C-alpha cells in the first residue's frame, strides 16, 4: 500500500480481467447455446 502506483496497477489488471472475463464467458455461452440450437434444428429435420 506504500506503493504510490498500487491503484493504477490494480485498476489496469482489474479492467483487463473484467473485459477478457466477459469475452470468455460470452464466447463459451454463445457456443453452448448454438450447439443446442443446431441439435434442435437437426432433430426437427429428422
Amino acid at each position: 500500500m506504500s506503493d504510490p502506483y498500487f491503484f493504477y496497477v490494480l485498476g489496469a489488471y482489474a479492467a483487463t480481467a473484467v473485459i477478457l472475463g466477459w469475452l470468455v464467458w460470452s464466447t463459451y455461452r454463445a457456443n453452448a447455446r448454438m450447439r443446442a440450437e443446431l441439435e434442435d434444428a437437426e432433430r426437427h429435420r429428422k
Partner: protein
Amino acid sequence: MSIWRYANPAEFMRLTGWLVLPLSVLAGVMLAVGLAWALLGTPDDYQQGSTVKILFIHVPASMLAINTYAVMAVASVIGLIRGHHVSFLVAKAAAPIGAAFTLVSLMTGAIWGEPMWGTWWVWDARLTSVLVMFFFYLGYMALWAAVDEPEKAAELSGVLCLVGVVFAFFARYAVNFWATLHQGASLSVAEGQRVDDVFRLPLYWMMAAFYVFFVALLLVRARTEIRARRARALRIREVAA
C-alpha cells in the same frame, strides 16, 4: 492436399474440433504462469516504479488488437475473392476478440499514461489511430448485425474491414512516421535489445500466452458462427418444406 479444403465447413469443424480443448487449457496455464511471473517475479522499474507491470498486459493486448485486425482483413480478402463463407465467418468471429483487446489496450494505456505522462489521453497519432480502429471494430460488428441477408452482410462488412486497414496500419506504424508522445517500439530486432531480460522474458511469455488465448477463442467463436449458419439453413429449409 490443398489448404482450401478447410474452407469447407465440415472439414473446418473436424480439424478444429480436437484443437479447442488443448488450446484452451494451454492458454489458461500460460496466462496464469505469465501473470504470476509478471506480478510477483519482476522488480519495479527504476523510473516507472510498479507501473511497469501494466505493460505486461498493455503490450500483448496492443499487438493482438492490431494483428487481429490483420487476420480479419486477410480473411475478408479471401472471402471476397474466393467466395469462401468460412473466411467471412472467421473474420466475424475475430471482431469481438479484437475489439476486446483494443479496449484493454486503450484502458491500460490510459491508466499507465496518467502517472507516467501526466495525462490519461492525448490526441497523439498512435493513440488516435488505435481509437479509430476500435470504432472500425464496432462498426464492423454493427454492420453484420444490421443486415439480415448473411451473404450481403458478409460482403459489405468485408469491404468495411478493408477500408479500416489503413487505421490498423497507422496504429502499428504511426510512431515510425511521426514524433509522437507514445514511444517507439521497445522490442526491435533491427535496433537490438533495449529492455532488460528481467522484463523482456516475462513480456515474451505474456505475448505468447495472449496469442494462444486468441487462437483458442477464435476457434470457438468460428465454430459457433458455422453452427449458427447451419442452424439457420435448416430452419429455412424446414419453413420452406
